[in-house]
Structure formats: structure tokens, C-alpha cells
């Protein structure tokens, strides 16, 4: 299993969160909102660092906590953000938040993308829907350290135009000439003159070569399944492909026993795994 660098929480009791205040809420899609926040304690906010791919437990005291990828890049010091899809009790409460509201945060947790190992290589990022959340953090990190990496490609797809997140970022990425950005939707739709096609198909059409390359994919299980098949056809080996796993989480620090896949915990050994790592796990994905 690849060793992946990890920064962690420094609290005395890592089950006790830090209070934070919402600075901004962005409505990304019909069921996804980005919540930006700052820790209430200035020293905590000052000291807060993380690496792309790491997760946090965002909570509403009284409703509970839930696990989300940090979707802002580490270079953003004014705030950090989680992009949240509304699915249950906690996420519904998160969707009621507005600027000035109080939340609880335990972050960062988990293993980050091994961006140091990827230096000098070409990076292909393929995201679908809410899967773009950790990938946004990753991609913006790569852009912050542009010279450390080779070719950068980002393919981001969703069912329909209104399901695509991060509008402002997409516009910025389209303008850049030091990266290739393709946003795509599943089917032809009036008002959309961009790419049409499923993420795996677009990826195969673009055919980035596997030599000295790394591919990262996150999104709905069905998209991941087909993207992995495409990457295989394109000649990518298991050690070159990375993804993130999701499991129901509670403690986030490898103690409550819940989020394991085999002997690995998604909260501490993941959520980032290479395909080679996943193949070593028992068959209960």
C-alpha cells in the first residue's frame, strides 16, 4: 500500500470540534451548496493547514456531523469550504445555513492525494457531479504549483448543465492556456453549446497518453466504474489511477470501527486510494 503523507488534527480530544462561522453560502445546483467558513478562534484559523483530498466533519450541533471533502485549496487562507449534497438530516440542516451561522468542524482528516509523488508528471482529473468537490481542491493546488507538474487536464461532467458546480471556477479554467478543461453533460440540451458525452467517453476521445501520467477520478459509482474501464483501455496501470472512497463515518479518526474496507479505514488510510491499493482490499467495495 502506498504511504501517503498525512496532516491531522491537533486538538486534545479529536472528537471535540472547533466552532466555526459561515462566511458565505453558494448555491451550486438544485441540491448542492458550498459553505465557506472560518474557525472562530483566530489562532486556530491561522494554524489551519491541510492537503487536497483530506476531509473534515462538518456539523450542526444538535443535528450531527457528516463527512465532506475540503473543496477549497490549501492556498486559500481566508476561508475553507465544503460542498455538500442534500441527502439526509445533517445535510438538510447544512442547506439551511446562511452567513453568520455557527457550525462545528473537525478537520483535516484522512490521507491526501500524493501530490509530491506526482511532481513532474502529467495529471488527468475526471470528475462527475459532487465528485468534483475533492478534485476542485486538488486541481487548484496543482495550478498553484503549476511548474511542478506536466500537462494538466480536467474533464468534469454532470447529467445536465444545471448539475455542474463551481461556475466561477469553470469560467476561469476555460480562460487558461496552461491546462485543458472540458466540461460535459450527458445528453444534448438546449442552451448548452459545450461538450456532450459521458465523462469516460470524452476521456477516451481526448486520449491523453498514459506515459508519465496519473489519473484521478471521483464521482458517482457508475461513472467511476466506466471511467476505470476507459482508463484501462487507454493503457493506464493500476498504480497510476487514484480515486476516493466513501463510507458512513462517525469518528473520522479510526476508532469507532465503522468505515473499514478490510483492514483499512476510509477515514485514516483513505479516503484517497490508488487502484492498486483497492485491488489488495477484500472484495467488499
Amino acid at each position, binding site marked *: 500500500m502506498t504511504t501517503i503523507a498525512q496532516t*491531522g*488534527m491537533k486538538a*486534545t*480530544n*479529536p*472528537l*471535540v*470540534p*472547533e*466552532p466555526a*462561522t459561515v462566511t458565505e453560502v453558494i448555491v451550486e445546483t438544485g441540491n448542492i451548496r458550498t459553505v465557506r467558513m472560518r474557525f*472562530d478562534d483566530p489562532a486556530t484559523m491561522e494554524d489551519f493547514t491541510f492537503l487536497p483530498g483530506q476531509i473534515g466533519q462538518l456539523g450542526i*450541533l*444538535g*443535528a*450531527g*456531523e457528516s463527512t465532506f471533502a475540503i473543496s477549497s485549496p490549501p492556498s486559500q487562507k481566508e476561508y475553507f469550504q465544503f460542498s455538500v449534497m442534500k*441527502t*439526509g438530516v445533517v*445535510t438538510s440542516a447544512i442547506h439551511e445555513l446562511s452567513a*453568520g*451561522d*455557527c457550525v*462545528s468542524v473537525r478537520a483535516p482528516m484522512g490521507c491526501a492525494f500524493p501530490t509530491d509523488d506526482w511532481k513532474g508528471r502529467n495529471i488527468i482529473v475526471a470528475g462527475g457531479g459532487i465528485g468534483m468537490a475533492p478534485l476542485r481542491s486538488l486541481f487548484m493546488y496543482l495550478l498553484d504549483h503549476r511548474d511542478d507538474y506536466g500537462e494538466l487536464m480536467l474533464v468534469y461532467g454532470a447529467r445536465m448543465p444545471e448539475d455542474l458546480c463551481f461556475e466561477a471556477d469553470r469560467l476561469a479554467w476555460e480562460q487558461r492556456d496552461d491546462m485543458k478543461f472540458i466540461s460535459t453533460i450527458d445528453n444534448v440540451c438546449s442552451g448548452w453549446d459545450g461538450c456532450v458525452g459521458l465523462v469516460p467517453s470524452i476521456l477516451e476521445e481526448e486520449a491523453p497518453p498514459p506515459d508519465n501520467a496519473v489519473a484521478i477520478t471521483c464521482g458517482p459509482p457508475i461513472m467511476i466504474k466506466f471511467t476505470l474501464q476507459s482508463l484501462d483501455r487507454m493503457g493506464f496501470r493500476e498504480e497510476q489511477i487514484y480515486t476516493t472512497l*466513501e*463510507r*458512513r463515518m*462517525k*469518528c473520522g*479518526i*479510526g*476508532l*469507532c*470501527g*465503522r*468505515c*473499514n*474496507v*478490510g*483492514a483499512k479505514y476510509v477515514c*485514516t488510510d483513505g479516503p484517497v486510494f490508488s487502484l492498486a491499493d483497492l485491488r489488495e482490499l*477484500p*472484495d*467488499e*467495495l
Partner: protein
Amino acid sequence: MRFLAVEKIDALLEALARSSSLWVPTVTEDSAGTVIFEAWEPGTAPVLDRFTTLSAKELLLPASEKIFSFAYNLSEGEESIEIEPSSREGGTTIFGTRACDAKAITVLDALFLQAPGEAYGDEQYRSRRLDLTVLTIACTTCDAACFCSSFENGPAEKAGSDVFLYPVEGGWLAEAITDRGRELTGGEPFADSGLEPPGLAVTRTVDIAGLQEKLLEIFSNIDFWQEATVKCLSCGYCTYTCPTCYCFNIFDEMRSDREGERLRGWDACMFSLYTRETSGHNPRPTIAHRYRNRINHKFSYYPANQGETLCTGCGRCIRGCPVGLDIRDVLAGVKEL
């Protein structure tokens, strides 16, 4: 070794209760003979002639406990939250565990006492654990559900105990295992003794050699696990009475419209809600999947990660299972495959 006369046990318990909260096995009326650790009160005679129904783990990992309390405050139109972590004072003494229970504590230590910096430890467990005294009754007899002899030292396991008490004529021979044990047994009400300790029981055994790898080898054979669990009710008896099962849930409870608590409490991997995601998707949809994970956790993953088997052969799961599921049969079945 030192000797504690039967008549002196009250004096010992009184002395122990003076410096920490003392827990002893008790049986309550109209409880179908349930023996559990309760806070000792003067006049309580500990029940030492049979196994406790629940283990001593609840004194390190309570069935539910507060992590922190919180309050929403509104001041000058601005909302803020206050978080107050739970704290506790005072030590704990457990009198009347068995070797399997005491060993189980050290098995849990391997995870919960991980050093900060290397991995996350558990602060609330640590605060209870670092001021814990354990007096264990040595097993000179056992029953057909016990299988601690399957593990290294069996009934002679001293790890986790401060004092090891061997039942003899008129009282107990006391062997001090730790400095704390030496401190406790050094003076009254313990006296000198030239007696030799009695022989300890030998329990049934199950061969656990090679299980760690074998379990992974047969992992995809879900038919085996389905066969093994046809009678299982997924009732939680085994996980809740087990001294090494530690999985917990975290949940919030509001006490008023402004104040509340975040608590944690016992959970079980055998429950289907354990891994069920909000979408309804459950990576372990059937009892067979969950039981496979339970056995793998105990005999494969925990040994791989923490270097200890997550079982000490106490037999509670066998003794109490409403449908007579015997973990030893399952393990033997794994080895035979």
C-alpha cells in the same frame, strides 16, 4: 505471595473505595441471574463464584457517555456556540474480573492508547485507563463455553491485572503484578503466606494459527458465511457482552432549544444500520456480510493493525447467544475450508 482472608474482604473493599470508585460483580433480584459490575456499597458482597454477564469494558467505554456539551448563544444579534468537553475526575478500581477480561483491556489499549502523533488515541478512554486498578480472580474452574486457553497464557494471563487473586482455602493468595499491585498488597489487610498457588483451569481450545491469512483467502466465499449465520438474529447480544468489541456510535441530543450534548455509545457491526448510508446503500446488506466482517475484524484486521487478536476466549458470546451460535465452530469451519 500474600494472603487475603475471606473475613478481610470487606476491609479491602472499604480501603479501595476510599481512594477511587470501586466496581464489583453483583447480582440483582429478579434479573434471571444477571451478574454485572456495579458501584460497590458497604455491605455488598461481590459475586465471585461465576462469570459476569457483561464485561468490565463498560468502565473504560461506558454504554453511553457525553463527549461534550454545547450551547447556542445569541448576543447583539450574533450567534455563537460554546463547546464544553466532558471531563472526569477520580480513579476507578475493578474488583472481580477474570484473566480474559483483564487481557481484553490490554487488547483495547493497543488501539485506544495509541500515542498522539502516530495515530489518534481516545482521550476519554485514556483518562479512565491511566487511573485504573484491576484485581482479578484467577480461574481454577471453567465452563464449556470458555476458550481462553486458545490464547497465549490462557487463565494464567496476567496482562491487564494489578493483582491476581487465587482462590484457596479460607481466602485468596494474592500475586502482585504491577507496582500498584505491590502497593495494594504490601500491607493490611493482606498478610504473609507460604502457600503455593493452585493449578488453574484448562479450557477448550480453538486453533487460531493461520486464521489471519486464511480469513482473507476465503473472503469472497459468502456462501460459507451464509451457512454460518442461518440462525443468527443479528440481535447484538454477542457484541454488547464481548469484552473486546468496542465499536461506537456518535449522536447529538438536544436538552433544550439552545443546549445539548454530543454523546457516544455502544454500537455493533452486526446491526444493519451500522454501515447503511443516507442514500440507503449498504455495503454489508445481509447478516452474512456483517458476521464476516465481525470475524475478520477480530481475527484478521485488528491483529494486522494493532498486533492483537480482538478476542480473549471469555465465552460470553457462546453462553448467551439465543440461538446457540458458537464462534468456535465458525473458526474451525474457516480453517477446514
